[in-house]
C-alpha cells in the first residue's frame, strides 16, 4: 500500500463524489446500497484468506442495522456518524463475545456454527412483536453534524458518507492485510501447527480477524439501514449471508477494491435482470454467476491482479 495508491484511490472516490449531482438519483441509491454490501464483503475477504468461510455474516450485518434503527427509535440518536460508530462497536462486541466459541472451529464447522448463531438472532427478531416481527421497523432519517438534508440532498449525503466509509475500509483493510497478522492468513490456511511454532496463537488471530470482519459487517448493516430506511429480520437470515458469500466468490479474495466492484456489479446485474424479465430475473442472475464461475473462477479481482502481473512481466523483459 503505497502513498501513490492511496492518492489514486482518494482521487477516484473523490471524482465519484463530485460526479454525484450529475448522476440519476436511482443510480446513486443503488451504488450506496452496493457499497454497504461491499463493506461486508471486504470483511469476508479477511476471513476468506485464512480459509474461513462464514455462512452467518448476516448476524453482524443485522446487528449493525438494528443498532441504527433502535438507537434512533429508543434513544433519539440521529447523527449518522454516531449511529455508524455505535453499529460498528455493537457488531464488533457481538463478534468478540461469540468469537471465544467460533475461533475454536475451522472449515465447515466454522461455517455452520456462524450460520447457527445468525439464525438464532433471526429467530429472536421474528418472535419479538414489539420490533415488528418479520415486518420490521422504519429507520428515522439521519442528520449529519446537525444538518438535516432532505429529499435528493439526503441521497447525496448518504452517498458521500458511503464513499468515505469505502475509503476508510479500503485503506484500513489493505493495511491490515499487509501487516504481519494479515499476512499470516495464508499460513493459517496452509498449516496452523507451524504458525503456532512461530509463537503465535492461531485462535487469538482468528478471533481478531472475526472481530474486524464483524466491525465491517456492522458498518455495512448501518449503511444499508440508513439507505433503505427500514430494517427487518430478513437481514439476519441465511440467504443474506449466502448473498455475501456469493458476492465474495464473484469478487474473489485477491483484491480489496474488487469487493466493492463485485458488489456493484452484482447489484447492477440484478436490477437490469428485474427490469428485463420480471417473471424470471433469477435466470439471468444465475446465468451470470454461473458464467463467472466458469470463466473467472478466481473472481473479478483476479483479472485486475492478472493484468498487473502481465504489466510487470513486460516491465522486467
Amino acid at each position, binding site marked *: 500500500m503505497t502513498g501513490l495508491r492511496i492518492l489514486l484511490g482518494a482521487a477516484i472516490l473523490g471524482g465519484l463524489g463530485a460526479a454525484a449531482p450529475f448522476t440519476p*438519483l*436511482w443510480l446513486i*441509491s443503488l451504488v450506496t446500497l452496493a457499497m454497504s454490501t461491499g463493506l461486508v464483503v471486504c470483511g469476508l475477504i479477511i476471513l476468506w484468506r485464512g480459509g474461513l468461510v462464514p455462512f452467518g455474516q448476516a448476524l453482524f450485518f443485522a446487528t449493525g442495522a438494528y443498532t441504527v434503527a433502535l438507537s434512533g427509535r429508543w434513544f433519539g440518536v440521529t447523527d449518522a456518524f454516531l449511529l455508524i460508530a455505535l453499529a460498528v462497536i455493537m457488531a464488533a462486541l457481538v463478534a468478540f463475545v461469540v468469537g471465544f466459541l467460533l475461533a475454536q472451529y475451522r472449515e465447515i464447522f466454522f461455517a455452520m456454527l456462524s450460520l447457527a448463531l445468525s439464525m438464532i438472532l433471526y429467530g429472536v427478531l421474528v418472535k419479538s412483536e414489539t420490533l*415488528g416481527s418479520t*415486518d420490521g421497523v*422504519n429507520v428515522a432519517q439521519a442528520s449529519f453534524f446537525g444538518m438535516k438534508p*432532505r429529499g435528493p440532498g439526503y441521497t447525496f449525503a448518504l452517498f458521500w458518507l458511503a464513499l468515505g466509509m469505502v475509503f476508510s475500509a479500503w485503506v484500513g483493510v489493505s493495511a491490515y492485510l499487509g501487516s504481519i497478522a494479515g499476512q499470516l492468513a495464508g499460513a493459517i490456511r496452509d498449516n496452523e501447527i507451524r504458525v503456532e511454532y512461530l509463537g503465535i496463537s492461531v485462535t487469538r488471530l482468528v478471533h481478531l480477524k472475526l472481530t474486524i470482519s464483524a466491525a465491517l459487517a456492522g458498518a455495512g448493516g448501518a449503511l444499508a439501514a440508513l439507505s433503505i430506511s427500514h430494517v427487518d429480520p*430478513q437481514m439476519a437470515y441465511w440467504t443474506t449471508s449466502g448473498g455475501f458469500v456469493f458476492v465474495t466468490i464473484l469478487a474473489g479474495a485477491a483484491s480489496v477494491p474488487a469487493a466493492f466492484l463485485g458488489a456493484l456489479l452484482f447489484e447492477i446485474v440484478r436490477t437490469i435482470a428485474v*427490469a428485463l424479465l420480471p417473471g424470471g*430475473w433469477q435466470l439471468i442472475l444465475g446465468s451470470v454467476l454461473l458464467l463467472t464461475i466458469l470463466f473467472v473462477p478466481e473472481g473479478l479481482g483476479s483479472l485486475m491482479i492478472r493484468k498487473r502481473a502481465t504489466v510487470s512481466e513486460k516491465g522486467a523483459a
Partner: protein
Amino acid sequence: MQRTSVRACLARKVSAALLLTALPVAAVAQTAPAAPAVPPVKLGIVTFLTGPAAGPFGIPGRNSAEIMIEMLNAGKVPAPYATAGLAGAPIVPKFVDEAGSTANQVTEFRNLVQRDGVNATVGYVSSGNCLAVAPVAEELKALTVFFDCGTPRIFEEKPLKYVFRATPHATMDSVGAARYVLKKFPDLASYSGINQNYAWGQDSWRDFVAAMKALAPKATVDKELLPKLFAGEFGAEISALLTTNSKIVHSSFWNGDLESFIVQNGARGLPARSTMVYTAGETAMFRLGAKIPDGTIIGARGPHGVMAPDTPLNKWFRGVYEDRFATAPTYPAYHMAQSILGLKSAWDKAAAAKGGQQPAIDDVVKAFEGIEFEGPSAKIRMAIGNGHQGIADIAYGSFRFNKAEGKAEIVDVVRYPAECVNPPANMTSTAWLEAGMPGAKCN
C-alpha cells in the same frame, strides 16, 4: 479442445434459454395501444411474480391488473368506469417482481419512480415491503397505492401524504371472524389458534383474541400455537389441538401451509372435534375442494370471490377474468381491481375539477383523500388514516362441497358493514380492540 466445445455449447444453450424467455415479454410489449393523443400514464405494478407468495397472491394480482388496465384502456369497464384510461390517458403498466429482500424492493421502487418515471405505483403484498416503501414514497412524492398488504401499522405510525390503501387492513378479518364464530357458537367456552410465527400470523391471532375478549369475555384460550412459517408439517401441533376441548380453531394460514394443514388435520380427525376457521381460506378452497370438511368457516379478506354480491360490475369482472385466465378470481385479484378503480376514481375526479385536463399528481392525491367508490365486491370509503385507508364490508361463510356439481361453495354468508369491523378514524386498531370496540355499528 473438449472443454472449449462444452463451454461454447453451454454458452449457446444459456443464451438460447435467455432468448426464449425474453420472447413473450417482447410480444406483450408490442400489443401496447397505438399512438394516443393524450400522453400515457405509466403505472408501476409490483406483486410477487416468483416465489411461494406468487401462486396464491402475486399472480392473481398481476392477472387482475393486466385485464383491468386493458379493459380500462378500451373503455370496456361498466359504469361508473366506462370512460377510457385515467381521465382519457391510456395506462401503460410496468410489472416488477416483489420477490427478494426489502432492500431490493426499495431499490426497485426508486428505479420505478426515478429511472422509469412512472406516474403512480400500485402494488405490494408483503406488509414488510409496504412499511419499507411507504417512507420512500413520501420522500420521492410518488403516488403509491398498496393493494394487498394487511398491517394496520402503515397509517397508524405516522400520517402519510402520497400513500393510499383502498384495501381494508387486517383488523377487519379478525373482527369479522370473531363475530361470525360467535354467531355460530354463541356459548363458546374455549378456542384455540394456530398461526404462522411471523408478523401476519402474530397480528391476526392477537387481533382475534382481542376481539373475542370484547365480544365473549368468558371464552378462554386453550392452545396458542405459532409454528414457523412454511413449516409444512404440523403433526405435533395437530396432536396438541386434539387434546383440547376447543369448539373452534382459528388460523390465518395461507398457501402451502394452509393446504398441508387442511390435509393433515383431516387425516387425524381434528375437524370432527373442532370447527376450523380459516381467515384467508378462500385462496385454497377451489384447489382442495372436497378435502375441506363441510362447515369449515372461510374468510376472503373482504366480501370477495364467491361471497361477492351480484352487481353488474362484479359479474363483469368475474366474466372477463374467467374468460382470460380460466379460473375464478380470488381475493388478491379483487384487491388489485379495487385499488386500480380507486386510483381511476381519484384521477377522474381530479381531472373533472380541472375541466377535463390531465391532473398533476398532487391533484390526484387531494382527490383520493376520503373518496368513496364502488369496487367489484363492495363500496370502499377512504374513511380512516386521514382519508388514506379504505374501509369496506366483510363477509364470512361456511364451506360446503356441492357433490352434485363437484363444486366448492360457501353458504350461510354473513356480511358485516364496514363500521362494524373497522376502527373509527380517530383510533388505532389495537386501541379500539382493547377498548372493546366502541362505536361499532353492526346494523
